[in-house]
């Protein structure tokens, strides 16, 4: 501390101390390529392996988009939101509401029009998700900070009410949502055919991941968030309002969930009121495997879960979800707090 102060006094700028960087733990990173390699001989057909791998990566990326917010929210404020799935569902429904009137754009045979419509839908879903998240934080979560039992109960209640309100607004039936014209079909590489939309999903997911990493690692806000996850009281003692940062993260996490909901709805080509609650199980598994509070861990875990469910879904369709639970148990046996344990609670 004294060294920091003297250095600040010397050149007037912010203190610069060479903190030895924590070396990146690379073993979990190797798990994803390892899974790909191991599955190749099992699947025994290169083209289907390519198809499955891309499908797995696409699924993983979408799950990452939805799960990352949840992980950060927990890491920062020790709040586990069981109603996170509601943001996903609402995002999907908002996406449908936006895309339906834009039928001319989505059915046009033009990449530009199609992308514009989808981007608009994703933006709207994100915005509505964010607003909903803000309201949710205000009304539901704020009174029960620090009380885990009540948090679980109250967010479950929020999930029930949100699901019912979705029924009120959008009706109980499943709504079909066809993909835009140019997003349909696949591309063939040699003998392997890959769905176009999956490639797009991988691209969008990667962009969001990189953007998040840049914000978290290269900006002052990201520094505050990471510091808050590590030791919230210390950051507060230094005079920062972690509570406000948290509201921001909560809103951003809800917005990402909404955006991911639209992506998932386009992927499944339909929207149901229960989709959020169903996805929550996968998301929880991902968050646990990754280590609560870690965005990087969440990313690796999401890819692993996506790949595992696609590979196993091909090899033994009946135990696809079982495979992800098995994966979770294996990881927890190896690292009891997940791949990248961050939150020390």
């Amino acid at each position, binding site marked *: 501390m004294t060294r920091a102060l003297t250095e600040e006094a010397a050149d007037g700028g912010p203190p610069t101390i060479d903190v030895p960087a924590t070396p990146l733990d690379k073993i979990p990173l190797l798990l994803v390529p390892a899974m790909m390699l191991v599955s190749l001989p099992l699947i025994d057909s290169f083209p289907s392996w390519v198809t499955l791998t891309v499908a797995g990566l696409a699924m993983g990326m979408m799950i990452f988009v939805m799960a990352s917010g949840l992980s950060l929210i*927990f890491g920062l404020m020790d709040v*586990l939101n*069981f109603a996170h799935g509601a943001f996903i569902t609402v995002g999907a429904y908002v996406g449908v509401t936006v895309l339906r009137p834009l039928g001319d754009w989505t059915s046009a045979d033009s990449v530009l029009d199609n992308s514009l419509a989808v981007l608009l839908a994703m933006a709207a879903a994100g915005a509505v998700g964010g607003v909903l998240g803000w309201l949710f934080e205000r009304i*539901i979560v704020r*009174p*029960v900070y620090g009380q*885990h*039992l*009540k948090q*679980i*109960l*109250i967010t*479950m*209640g*929020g999930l*029930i*009410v949100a699901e*019912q*309100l979705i*029924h*009120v607004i959008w009706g*109980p039936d499943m709504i079909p949502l066809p993909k835009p014209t140019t997003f349909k079909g696949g591309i063939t590489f040699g003998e392997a055919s890959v769905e176009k939309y999956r490639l797009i999903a991988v691209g969008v997911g990667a962009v969001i991941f990189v953007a998040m990493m840049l914000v978290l690692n290269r900006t002052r806000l990201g520094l505050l968030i990471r510091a808050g996850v590590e030791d919230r009281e210390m950051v507060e003692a230094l005079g920062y309002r972690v509570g406000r940062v948290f509201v921001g993260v909560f809103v951003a996490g809800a917005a990402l969930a909404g955006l991911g909901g639209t992506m998932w709805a386009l992927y499944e080509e339909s929207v149901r009121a229960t989709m959020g*609650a169903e996805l*929550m*199980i996968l998301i*929880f*598994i991902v*968050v*646990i495997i990754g280590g609560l509070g870690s965005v990087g861990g969440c990313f690796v875990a999401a890819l692993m879960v996506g790949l595992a469910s696609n590979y196993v879904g091909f090899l033994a369709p*009946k135990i696809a*979800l*079982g495979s992800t*639970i098995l994966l*979770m148990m294996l990881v927890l046996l190896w690292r*009891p707090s997940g791949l990248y344990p961050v939150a020390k*609670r």
Partner: protein
Amino acid sequence: MIARALRATLLSDDGPRSRLLALLLFAILIGLAFAPFLFPGTRSLNVAAKICVFILLVASYDLLLGYTGIVSFAHTMFFGIGGYGVALAMSRFGVGWGNIAAGTVGALLLSLVLSLAVGLFSLRVKTIFFAMITLAIASFFAILASQLSDITGGEDGITFKLPEVLSPGAKLMEAPIFGVDITGRLLTYYLVFAGSLAGFLVLLRIVNSPFGRVLQAIRENEFRAEAVGYRTVNFRTAASVISALAATLAGVLYALWLRYTGPEVTLSFTIMVDILLMVVIGGMGTVYGAAIGATLFVLAQTYLQDLMRAASEATASIPLLPVLIHPDRWLLWLGVLFVLSVYFLPAGLVGKLRAVSGTQR
């Protein structure tokens, strides 16, 4: 004198401690005990049987949630194991009392092993992790039950027959009593009623035993309970095993009553949410809360919808309102009630009633 002795033995000296609550509980007991005579008709008897089963199920969940402070989403799994156990035994090995017993014992054993495994594996972790892990395990089990359609009948479930005496066609007495025919159905109802009542009283006994006190100590302050010298993991595991066994028993009774079991009625997440609502609205940490919560909830589920249908039709001209009070939206209002009761009635209706009487501990 006799009343006091009864209170001590049957209620384990844990009385309702509120006159209104005592009255309500007495009304529920009488209503259920004489349901076939007080409310004749198939529908009301179905409701009464469902209330009986859910009182036991919810009370067993309260042992976890309210007394020990464990949030498990795998409770329906054990409920389902009970149902499937008896249904499989009856449909595979033929109808008979021996097979009911065998199915029940088999289901209890499976629940015992599973709850021990889940408990020992994951009760060391924090509340939140346990909640998430049990959610994953329960959904895996539900998917397994619907996928393995060769064994479990898939989504359709299993329909089975009961022994001759319990079948609806069996007339046990020539003359009706108080205008009600004494059929096998009635006998089945009393089997369900007696089983639930016995289970309920046993649970009441358990939570008021020294063991139950330790559970409450763990709920209040786990660190301190451990410091005092209790192996908290063992106690938490024991609580989850007992609770799982009681849930399995409830599942057996429910399957016997319905003569059917399937993913929708036992394993679905909806049932889990229903149980949560019943526990919290009735009152966490009081076994009586389970009785109040389950009764209110099942009554609402069945009769509130009729009321809402009428109201919805009456207000058809007003915008939005009819949609909000549409009979399918009854869960919306219970969800709101749930959120409100977590905020304002942390001890649920029972806690409120006791506080009003001013005799709360």
